[in-house]
């Protein structure tokens, strides 16, 4: 039998190799207590300057995940914004997506979905960069505080994935974000309060009307008593036309929630609406 197929390749080296591997492991264990670990920026992959304490102490700090330059290059939303959904909108008043709707849903997002923010969402969504969830959730939480000063949610609900999609990906990026939001706002997080019961296509490939049809009645509240008579905050990663959050919110309204608002990490906007800066 060859070396490669034995159970553990590190067991099958020479005695000296095994001993040095063991000593190295021991030193690593000791070193982790004393020396700070090195970390690289998640976007540009350059090493980050070492903070005074080990990186593990900064779970809520975006500066422990990204470098100064990449944080500078994120596009933050700036007024004029749509008063309902918080999208950059240069004409004032409601944006074209909110004008079309019968029920408007109020919400906010700290970032514009371009450039570095797009890359950041991609990291969170497809590359299992779980450690970004907490700091970005903090940013969303801070945005909720400042954009809706007179409203406080009673619980945080992440926009769910379908069970099959969840099993394929292994995690729900909206849930990672909402962990940070609930930690920042000190409100409980309701994991299983909202479920996605229907398989939906990815929204990104569809037109505006198709998106609405795609997610219509895709959400279900298994125990209405949990959400009834509550102020709820929906958390998602990207807000494009708002079809997904609207479908999720209507399921919660039907279950008896008093108010539902949403917060997302990034919002899609026309470049014309951004160019005034």
């Amino acid at each position: 039998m060859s070396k490669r197929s034995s159970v553990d390749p590190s067991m099958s080296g020479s005695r000296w190799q095994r001993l040095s591997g063991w000593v190295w492991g021991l030193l690593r264990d000791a070193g982790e207590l004393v020396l700070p670990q090195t970390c690289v920026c998640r976007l540009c992959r350059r090493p980050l300057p070492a903070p005074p304490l080990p990186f593990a102490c900064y779970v809520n700090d975006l500066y422990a995940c990204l470098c100064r330059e990449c944080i500078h290059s994120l596009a933050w939303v700036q007024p004029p914004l749509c008063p309902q959904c918080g999208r950059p909108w240069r004409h004032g008043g409601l944006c074209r997506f909110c004008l079309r709707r019968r029920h408007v849903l109020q919400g906010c997002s700290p970032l514009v979905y371009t450039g570095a923010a797009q890359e950041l969402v991609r990291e969170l969504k497809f590359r299992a960069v779980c450690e970004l969830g907490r700091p970005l959730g903090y940013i969303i939480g801070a945005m909720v505080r400042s954009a809706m000063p007179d409203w406080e949610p009673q619980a945080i609900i992440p926009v769910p994935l379908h069970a099959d999609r969840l099993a394929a990906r292994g995690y729900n990026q909206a849930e990672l974000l909402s962990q940070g939001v609930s930690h920042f706002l000190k409100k409980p997080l309701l994991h299983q309060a909202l479920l996605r019961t229907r398989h939906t296509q990815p929204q990104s490939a569809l037109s505006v009307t198709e998106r609405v049809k795609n997610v219509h009645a895709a959400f279900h509240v298994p125990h209405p008593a949990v959400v009834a008579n509550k102020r709820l905050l929906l958390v998602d990663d990207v807000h494009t036309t708002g079809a997904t959050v609207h479908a999720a919110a209507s399921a919660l309204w039907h279950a008896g929630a008093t108010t539902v608002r949403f917060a997302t990490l990034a919002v899609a906007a026309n470049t014309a609406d951004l160019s005034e800066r």
Partner: protein
Amino acid sequence: MSRYFLWAAQQGIILSGCSYLPAKLDVERVPIKPIFYGITPEPAVELRFSAGKPLYLLSAEVPLWLAQLLLSMAKPRFQQAAVGCWQRLYFQARVSYLRRRMQSQLLNWEYIRPPAPRVLRSADMHAGDWECCAAMPTPELTSAVLEALKARRLLESELETALARLGAVYDGQLRVLLHHLVLHHILQRESAIALNSYGRLHCRRCGSDRIHWAWCAKCGSHCPFCGDCRNMGVARGCSALYSLTPQMQAHTARHVQAVPKMNLPFALSSAQAAASEQIVSAMRQGAKEITIWAACGAGKTEVVYAAMREVVGRGKRVLLLTPRRDVTAELYARLQGVFGADYVVGLYGAAESNYQASPIMVATTHQAIRLDGAFGLVVLDECDAYPYRTEKMLQNAVGRLARQGGCFIQMTATPSPLLRRHSSRLVYIPARHHGHPLPVPNVLQDTGLRLWRTPEMTQSLPPCPESVIEALIRSRREKAQLLIFVPRRLLVAPLVEALRQVGVERVAGVHSGSENRDEIRTAFKEGQLEAVVATTIFERGLTFPQVNVAVLLAETRQIFDNAALVQMAGRVGRTTTRPQGSVWFTCVQPSQAMRQAIEDIVTLNEMAARAGLLASGYVDVAPGKLKPGEQRGIGDVQA
């Protein structure tokens, strides 16, 4: 729990109902005769395979990484002499720490408590809950799996997409079908995350031990995953890595009928020809590791063509790796021209989707973690380039391929001190093909650059640095364009603005985020721009015919190291139309890296002069006077 498994080991039956059979343990070493040993995801398939012998089901399903842990705990019983006493103590401490950690995170720990051993017999196969074993892999699926895994090692999810692209159809669970192939010794499977002998979880795919823990919806528990290779698909504790067994791998590698023809677009220069000869003879003598130290623009890729041809002629595969995607694309096109499109396949970005195990494979270093199987020759171009230089994961992956047998050639313009000291063979290509020496950088000290260290902190735009203006004036006099490198992306826009203020109109800035990167590059190449301000993205692989280079704040650490500085200086004088030019390093205080870079360039120039490789006007050093340390160079080949 461990007592329970040790009991099982003594009985000679570890088995089953768990999710993983890593590989069969070494039968000869086991003192007792087992029926089956290991852990399996598919008891029914095992049972059918065991030809009617009963199978002992000992536990409920556990995650893959834990199954491997359990197995490694039972393993000392099989291999008594495997670890020493102290190591075993440390191992046990690590395992108990991991177990405590699991316990705090995992609510339903009880499923690892031993249930009563169950015996599974062939009669049970018709009980109804073993339907899955009805599905057998079809010959089409088997050949598709063979095709997809040729020279590769893939995660289950990656294998699934590869099979979908090959158009393989299968009914039933893929995992069950693959398990059949594992039992037939066609595939081998290992847990992507496993415990090594000193009790540390590590990633089998990239070798990193930076393991994160998170709740995983795949297996429904807290599950370790690798933090380093997740850009290439997430390697989890519950996912398996599939590859062909060494025998099958060797079987599929026998492919080449004829030695490929080589048609070079131009003849090799004398320096290249000498180096090429040296490499081929070293390989014939069985050298395992060769380092090529070439001047920037000397054409190091052409030097390995002869070696590649020889290895392909022997019926083995050749792998050519570079850290940068655009360089890979360019190399792929070039090799296709030389060896013909049938022999070469390129694995990078979008082109990765049409995978095909050709004799010559050109790939980015990121792809190396998906590749496997003995390559006869692994060539690593630009081994000092970012991100390979900084990322341990890529070094691990390339190192694994290099160690699997065959020869490993590293090519660089700036070998690291470690490489210089430890490489058993160092081959030099000191001169460019036009025979002019490399331009030696001038150092311009300028205290005004202090303001440019953090321009975003100052209120107003700092004035354009004197040293840059001087470089501009001299370039204008030489009728050359100026390429200005800046250490950080945030400096690009302010410097372009400052240059406009001093009256340079045709100027543009470019960094990794700019969208018109390609347009600026072509405009600069055609001479429409007088100056371009760039970050290190323009450092490698580009040729501008009429260019001088200035490096702003060349002493910046971590970004402008020795390798980067030599590369940036190497942009100048690459073409026959303008074989000379000027390079300026502007700084507040010269750094060690700058001195080292200048020293390296001068060393190569001297070596070229001594070997008589420079054009007639430059031969001013008497040949034949070699220092003891340099005797392996071109010099003694020619002597």
